[in-house]
């Protein structure tokens, strides 16, 4: 797998469009999931996802270790998400509490569960949201998280555990809905 990635990244660096397409196809779910968990808005997450890949591919020659393409993409997405959130704070026109409810007045049980989780996530701070998004994307190990966040493994574990407990506290009272 790592050799395959190495080859793909090298081809990207040489300007091979098929390799770029492959990198996008492999990582788009991860980047979109991070974006959505961080921003809680579908359209903005799509924009962020696109921007991440465009920025990454423009600077792909700067990537020294082809094996670190995933953490590299994640860190670009994370920085862009922080920019979006800063911008949003400045404009303060979006009420996070209302996200998803305007477009879906009568959601089904599955969507309702997603909305409950997303709302609870939005009440956490940005760092906790990012950690949870990265951890629960099953391809990522704790080791990956240490690379992506730049923290030690023990710190990541503690932060992750705290973030998850905070989320649990935010979900107090939703037991029936989430377990149905």
């Amino acid at each position, binding site marked *: 797998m790592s050799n395959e990635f190495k080859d793909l990244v090298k081809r990207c660096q040489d300007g091979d469009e098929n390799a770029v397409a492959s990198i996008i196809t492999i990582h788009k779910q991860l980047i979109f999931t991070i974006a959505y968990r961080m921003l809680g808005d579908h359209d903005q997450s799509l924009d962020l996802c696109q921007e991440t890949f465009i920025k990454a591919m*423009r600077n792909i020659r700067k990537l020294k270790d082809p094996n670190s393409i995933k953490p590299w993409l994640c860190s670009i997405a994370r920085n862009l998400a922080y920019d979006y959130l800063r911008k949003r704070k400045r404009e303060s026109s979006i009420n996070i509490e209302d996200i998803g409810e305007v477009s879906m007045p009568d959601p089904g049980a599955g969507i309702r569960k997603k909305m409950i989780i997303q709302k609870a996530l939005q009440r956490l701070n940005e760092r906790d949201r990012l950690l949870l998004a990265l951890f629960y994307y099953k391809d990522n190990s704790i080791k990956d998280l240490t690379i992506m966040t730049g923290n030690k493994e023990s710190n990541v574990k503690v932060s992750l555990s705290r973030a998850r407990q905070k989320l649990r506290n935010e979900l107090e009272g939703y037991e029936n809905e989430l377990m149905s």
Partner: protein
Amino acid sequence: MNSCPEKKDLIAYCMDMLDQKKRKLIEEQAAICQHCRQVIQFESAIDKELSTRMDPGNIDDIILRKLRIYKDLRIRSWWFYPLYVFLNTLAGCALLFGIWISVSNQLGDRSFSFPILGDNTGSYIGIGISIAVLLAIFGFAFRRNLARVIRVL
């Protein structure tokens, strides 16, 4: 384990972040305690929702299109701009040179005639050089299109 474990331990159990010994203790407790089972069930439901992957759909083409536009507009190597200016200047000079020779020949001025080659040879050489330089510069400017045409042929 005689009493229910702490909530944080149950969460850690669901996140698979406990060592084997602690895991076993929690499993034993959950087997006899309905409350613990319910907590684990709830935490698992949260984990399941958090693990859902989100699909952005077919954004590949949009990204590739945007990258293609960028590729066309991107800044070239450091030598490209000076070369571009130099070749344009050369093209202008070649054009003016050709016009000047033609006009001066028309007016009877034989400054560019070569005694050995004949009266008009100088002007022909001058115009030939101008056209060659212009063609070379056009070739350079449209090199990508030319390469594509050659590939098709």
